[in-house]
């Protein structure tokens, strides 16, 4: 697999903003999309990527933000279904090599598997972290 240089983050949520800020710090070419301009306040002060205002549910926004040229697309809006739709469009139609989505509801993992999309289940991750800190309480 070629080296990941160009990254598009969709949804400037806490997670999206943090990821974008970190990736920008790591000298990656980052674009972050959100439909609400105010969301970009969550980005760190030294974020040097592009911000793009638009509704990513609309394919025109994805085309305008050059998602099709990205090596990696990360869909982290606050809606699981929107994340999945964007991920499917990016991998199937725009042929983006690597697509990552955030899911809050793990019951839709099935679709990720059929469409060959990697996902992060944030609630599961939080439970694992909790388990690590408390240690053995959940076993």
């Amino acid at each position: 697999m070629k080296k990941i240089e160009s990254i598009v983050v969709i949804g400037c949520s806490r997670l999206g903003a943090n990821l974008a800020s970190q990736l920008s710090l790591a000298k990656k070419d980052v674009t972050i999309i959100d439909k609400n301009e105010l969301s970009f306040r969550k980005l760190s002060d030294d974020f040097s990527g592009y911000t793009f205002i638009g509704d990513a549910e609309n394919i025109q926004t994805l085309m305008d933000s050059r998602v099709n040229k990205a090596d990696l697309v990360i869909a982290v809006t606050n809606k699981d279904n929107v994340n999945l739709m964007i991920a499917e469009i990016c991998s199937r139609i725009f042929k983006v090599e690597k697509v990552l989505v955030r899911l809050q509801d793990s019951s839709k993992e099935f679709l990720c598997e059929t469409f060959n999309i990697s996902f992060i289940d944030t609630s599961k991750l939080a439970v694992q972290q909790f388990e690590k800190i408390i240690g053995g309480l959940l076993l």
Partner: protein
Amino acid sequence: MNDRVVVVGGRKKADFLAESLTKRKMNVIIINDTNSFCVDMSHKYPNAIVACGDGTKPYLYDDLDIEDSDIFIAMMPSDADNLIACQLATKQYHVKKVFCTVSNPKNVEIFKQLGINNVISSTYIVSKMIEQMATLRKIENYIPLEQGTIGLIEIIIEPNMEAVNKRIIDLKVPRKSIIATIIRNQKAIIPRGDTMIEAYDKLIVLAEDQEKELMIKHLTKVVS
């Protein structure tokens, strides 16, 4: 065994569908996220199964046992929700036929590429209808003859129509109509099969009443 139909989301559309489906003795399952609407529906259609909840959640599908249903119709306000619901229905629950409504007409093609066969956009359908009516406006004049069994129609040919730069013989006009005269630069031309149609020609067409719509559509077809 009667067909089992799942209707997700939609208010008036869901109500209307439920009415016609229950009349046809189909087993209807209604899923909607508005509690009051669900209560209404359960009173109105006592034989239908009504569930209140998020229509994109697999646990709801499990509870309602929609596996192998015949038809699944998604009419929620969000296109993404409809896409995911339809994909779950086909891929995970093996529903035989799935219909997905979308509000953004661009999603029709996209969702087809993502594996949904029947995508319906009311915006798309309505705009196509308006477009057709707008092309029918190209008729300048219509004169019915012989109690309307036959009529004279004036049609202006626009540069973006398929008929431009074609010989009449190549136009293959419907059998019960003819292009009687072409008015070009204020002069009348009696056309022959090899006469070329040009942009901004005014055609005087003679057509049988039942064929006039077809003839107008045929001549004013826009290059796609």
